[in-house]
């Protein structure tokens, strides 16, 4: 069916980017896979009514909402939608080789730590613009701001990151 094919194409195209985005925010490769799965599960449920030009922004916003939800509810000891999906028989699949590689990569951990030292607004731009490799326009859509603002923020972000890296020496 064409619908499934279109979704499959979208999943293969975007899931790694979403995974990286979530990983940058959680530093947990297992949780990142769980959340990535939950993002696409939700998107699939609504696939028929999605605006195609809005899909990429929706993926990132959904990922962000799930992460916020996750941490807030975990703090309160509440069940999260992710756990709901798991209880309903959803079985996530993990790339153990990649996870091992990520966990052993001290350089990656170091740069993660340095990026996470940036103020949140600058960190978001770095993650979306240079790690997820989105355009300024796409980044602006996700952050609900203007392209001009994204370019200003990215300049400040990279400048600040350079200082953080240098101070890390």
């Amino acid at each position, binding site marked *: 069916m064409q619908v499934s094919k279109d979704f499959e194409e979208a*999943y*293969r195209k975007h899931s790694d980017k979403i995974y990286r985005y979530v990983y940058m925010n959680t530093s947990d490769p297992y949780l990142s*896979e769980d959340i990535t799965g939950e993002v696409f*599960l939700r998107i699939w449920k609504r696939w028929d009514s999605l605006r195609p*030009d809005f899909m990429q922004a929706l993926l990132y916003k959904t990922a962000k909402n799930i992460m916020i939800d996750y941490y807030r509810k975990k703090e309160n000891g509440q069940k999260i939608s992710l756990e709901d999906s798991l209880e309903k028989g959803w*079985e996530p699949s993990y790339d153990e080789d990649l996870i091992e590689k990520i966990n052993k990569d001290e350089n990656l951990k170091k740069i993660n730590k340095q990026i996470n030292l940036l103020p949140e607004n600058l960190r978001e731009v770095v993650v979306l613009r240079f*790690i997820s*490799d989105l355009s300024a326009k796409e980044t602006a859509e996700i952050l609900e701001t203007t392209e001009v603002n994204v*370019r200003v923020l990215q300049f400040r972000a990279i400048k600040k990151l350079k200082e953080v890296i240098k101070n890390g*020496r």
Partner: protein
Amino acid sequence: MEDNNLENLIKEFKDAGATEGEAEEFAYLSKNLSNFYSFRRSTDVKDRFLRLLLKRKTVNFSRMAFISAMFSFLLFLGFSSTVFAQDSLPGEILYPLKRFSESLTAKVNPSFKSVILQRRSEEVNKLTSQNQSEHIDEAINDYEEELNENEKISKEAIDESKKNLEEAGKKVNDSELKDSIEKMLEDTEKREEDLDEDVKGNSSTKKDENSDHNDNENSQQDEDDVENLLEH
């Protein structure tokens, strides 16, 4: 992503106020960052996910067929069950029936999606009255999804939704929930502005930007210190 080639990045940094040297340095740092995070999950993991998910959709169709039969039975018995379901809220037994009947109606009459949006806002409002915190978050997410996904929403639905959200906002004491409802209102107002612009003929001409970009497949990490990111 074409946007992110070195030349464009250098230009962007210069436009933002960087000197020539700074712009070049920052552009290289940005590119190096991108390469640093180029890891990808295996094809097996993705295949497995897709198999499970698409098989699940087939199973859901069977479930939908069962619910459809149940729905027809209820209609045969009388309107009352369906009418009663329309007042149900997230967490209640008849709520899935309400959602199912909405989706059926929307398929036949796409303009019904405006009513659906309004209902989601009513649900948020009613849940705040009942102090049902475990379902409010779900209701908020559902509202946001309806707001973002539907191309055409009537002015009336937007106005009613705003009214419901304002009422809901006045009732909550929890600051986080208050913030969430505030955000919903802001998003609704923004959507209203977008719709007004569309009506005026200023269509947003966003193209589908799902074009291929330069995902660098290089999975070999630089063994040297992270500071090498600053090197060209």
